[in-house]
C-alpha cells in the first residue's frame, strides 16, 4: 500500500537581504490515513511553513528541496494546474486568525460557490445547496448565507473557514493554529467539531499548534519542531510521558496547571535561522549541553519503537 503522506528530507528556505533563512531543514515525517498528527514548537520554528509547503502556497522565490509524497504524487514537482486542483479537494488548510481570511467584499455564499465551481463542474444551484448544507453542519443558519464576512463573529468566521475547507471533503486537513485567536469556549467548540469530523469522514488531521493541552487531547502522534528541524517524533502518550529531547521537556515543563506555583520557561529565545548554532541547534539553551552538542549535529534516532529524537543523550532520558 502506498503511504498516505510521506515527507522526505524536506528543506524550505526563504531568501532575505541578509541571506537564506532555513525555515525547515531535512524534515522526514510520515502520516497514515485517518491519523491525527500534532506539530508543536515555538513561534518561528517552521510549523506554519510546513503546512504551507504541503499545500504549495509558499511565497514565490521560496526554495523548496526534497519530496512530499501524497498518495504517490510528489507534490513539489506537480504542475501548477494539477496542484491547484488538489487544494481543498484533497488537502485543505484552516488558518489561524479567521478575522482576515474571508474576502470582505464577497458574500459568504459566493466564497463557497466560487470554490466548488473551481473544482467541480456542477450547476450554480447545486453549489449553493451544498454551501447551505456545509454551513448548517457547522451550526450557521442558512438565512445568513448571503451576509458579508464582517457580519460574523470570530468564532463564526472560523466555522465558516472550516466549512469552506471541508465542503469538498478532502482526505487531509491541515489546521494551522485554528483556535489561537479565539476564546476558550469557542476553542473547545472548534476542537470538538474537528474531532467529530475525523470520526465521520475518517479524515487525517495535521494539527499545528503551540498548545500542548490540545495535542494531548486529540492527537495520536506528535512531531516537535525546533528551529526548523524535527527534534522529536512519537506517539502522544510516549512524548508526554517520556520526552526524550530536552526541548520537549522544556515545553512540557512550561505548561501552566492549576497547581502551578512557579512558572518554568526555556531560557533564551529561538536562534536566528540565517546563521543557526553549530551542532545541535538547541545547545545554547539546553541545560544538559556538552562539548559534543556544539560540535556534532545529533541524528534523529529511534530510541524506542516509533519514538524518535535528535539528541546525543536521548537514551539517558529513557
Amino acid at each position, binding site marked *: 500500500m502506498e503511504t498516505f503522506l510521506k515527507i522526505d528530507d524536506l528543506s524550505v528556505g526563504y531568501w532575505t537581504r541578509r541571506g537564506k533563512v532555513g525555515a525547515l531543514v531535512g524534515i522526514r515525517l510520515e502520516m497514515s490515513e485517518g491519523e491525527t498528527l500534532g506539530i508543536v514548537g515555538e513561534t518561528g520554528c517552521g510549523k506554519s511553513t510546513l503546512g504551507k509547503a504541503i499545500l504549495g502556497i509558499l511565497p514565490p522565490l521560496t526554495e523548496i528541496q526534497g519530496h512530499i509524497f501524497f498518495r504517490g504524487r510528489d507534490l513539489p514537482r506537480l504542475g501548477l494546474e494539477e496542484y491547484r486542483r488538489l487544494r*481543498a479537494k484533497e488537502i485543505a488548510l484552516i488558518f489561524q*486568525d479567521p478575522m482576515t*481570511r*474571508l*474576502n470582505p467584499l*464577497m458574500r459568504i455564499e459566493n466564497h463557497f460557490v466560487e470554490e466548488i465551481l*473551481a473544482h467541480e463542474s456542477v450547476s450554480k444551484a447545486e453549489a449553493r445547496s451544498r454551501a447551505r448544507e456545509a454551513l448548517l453542519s457547522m451550526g450557521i443558519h442558512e438565512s445568513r448565507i448571503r451576509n458579508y464576512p464582517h457580519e460574523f463573529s470570530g468564532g463564526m468566521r472560523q466555522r465558516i473557514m472550516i466549512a*469552506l475547507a471541508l465542503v469538498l471533503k478532502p482526505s487531509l486537513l491541515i489546521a494551522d493554529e485554528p483556535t489561537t485567536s479565539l476564546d476558550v469556549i469557542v476553542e473547545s467548540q472548534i476542537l470538538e467539531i474537528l474531532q467529530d469530523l475525523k470520526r465521520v469522514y475518517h479524515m487525517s488531521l495535521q494539527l499545528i499548534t503551540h498548545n500542548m493541552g490540545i495535542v494531548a487531547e486529540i492527537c495520536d502522534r506528535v512531531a516537535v519542531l525546533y528551529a526548523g528541524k524535527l527534534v522529536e517524533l512519537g506517539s502522544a502518550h510516549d512524548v508526554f510521558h517520556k520526552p526524550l529531547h530536552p526541548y520537549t521537556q522544556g515545553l512540557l515543563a512550561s505548561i501552566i496547571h492549576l497547581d502551578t506555583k512557579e512558572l518554568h520557561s526555556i531560557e533564551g529565545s529561538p536562534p536566528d535561522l540565517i546563521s543557526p548554532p553549530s551542532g545541535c541547534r538547541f545547545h545554547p539553551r539546553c541545560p544538559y549541553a556538552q562539548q559534543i552538542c556544539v560540535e556534532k549535529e545529533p541524528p534523529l534516532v529511534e530510541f524506542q519503537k516509533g519514538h524518535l529524537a535528535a539528541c546525543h543523550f536521548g537514551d539517558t532520558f529513557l
Partner: protein
Amino acid sequence: MGQDIQQQRIITKILGKPVRYVRSLFRPLVRERRTLPGILSWIGLVMLLGFIFIGIFAPVLVPIQQTNALAYPILLPPNAQHWMGTDGIGRDVFARVIWGARTSLTIMAIGALLALIVGFPIGLFSGYVGGWVDRALVLVMDSVYAFPGLLLAALIAAVIGKGIFNIGIAITVIYIPLYFRVTRSQTLSTREELYVEAARALGARSWTIMLRYIAFNVVIVIPVIFSLSAADTILTAAGLSYLGLGLEIDVPGDWGRDLSDAQKYLGSGIWWTSLFPGLMIILLTIGLSFLGEGLSDIINPLLRKERS
C-alpha cells in the same frame, strides 16, 4: 405580470454590481456630509454636475451660431445682451464659455477614462505578477512619468494631429502612469492580504484571485485619482490649446484657445475675453479637486480601518 417580474430580476442582476458599487461609494459620502472632507466632496460633486449639465444642454442654452466668428460687433464690453461681452472676432464670450464646457468635459472623459482603462489593468497585472515583468513595467511607466507632462502631450499632439479625440489620447499617455502606480501599489498591499492566501489555499484560479479578490479591493481608490487626474486633464488640455496644439479652429468652444487669443487685448484694458474662460478653467478644476481631495480623505481612513 410574471414576465415583468422576470424582467425586473434580469435587470437587477445585470445592474446589481455597478449599482452596489456606486451605493457603497455614496454611503460614506452621505455619512460624512457634515465633516470638512464631506462638505468639500459635496461642493465638488455639485460643481461637477453643474458643468456636466451645462455641457450636455449647451445647444439648448445658447444657439451655436453665437459662437461663430463675426456673429456680432467685436470687443463689446459685457452688457445686457452679451453678458460676458464679445471677443476680438465678434463671438459671444458667454456662448463660447458654455460650449467650452462641452469640449473640456469631452476631452476630460476621453483622457481620464482611457488612462483608467489602460492604466488600471496594467497596474493590477504588474503588481500581481511581480518579478521582472513588474520591474520592466515600472521602469517604462516611471520614465513616462518623469517626462514633463505638458511637453509630452504637446509632442504627441504634434505627431498625431489636432482634434478632440487626438488631444484626449495625447493626454491619456500622461496619466496612464498615474493610474498604473496607484493601482500597482494598492495591488501590492492587497496581494499580501490573508484572504488572498486563503483563496489560494482553497484552490482558486489565478484569474479569480486577481479579479475577485484583488481588483475589487483595489478599485476603491480609483474615484480619488479619477477626480484628481480629471482636474489635471482640464489644465493640460487648456495648456495645449493655449500653445496652439489643441483643437481645430472651428470647435465651438475652447477655453484654452480663447484665453490664448484674448492675451493680445489684455494690454488695452479688455479683460472680459480672458477673465471668463480662465474663470471656467479654475472653477472646473477646483470642483474636481475638491471632489478628489474630499473623497481621498473619506476613503483612505476607511481603507486603513478595514485593514487594521
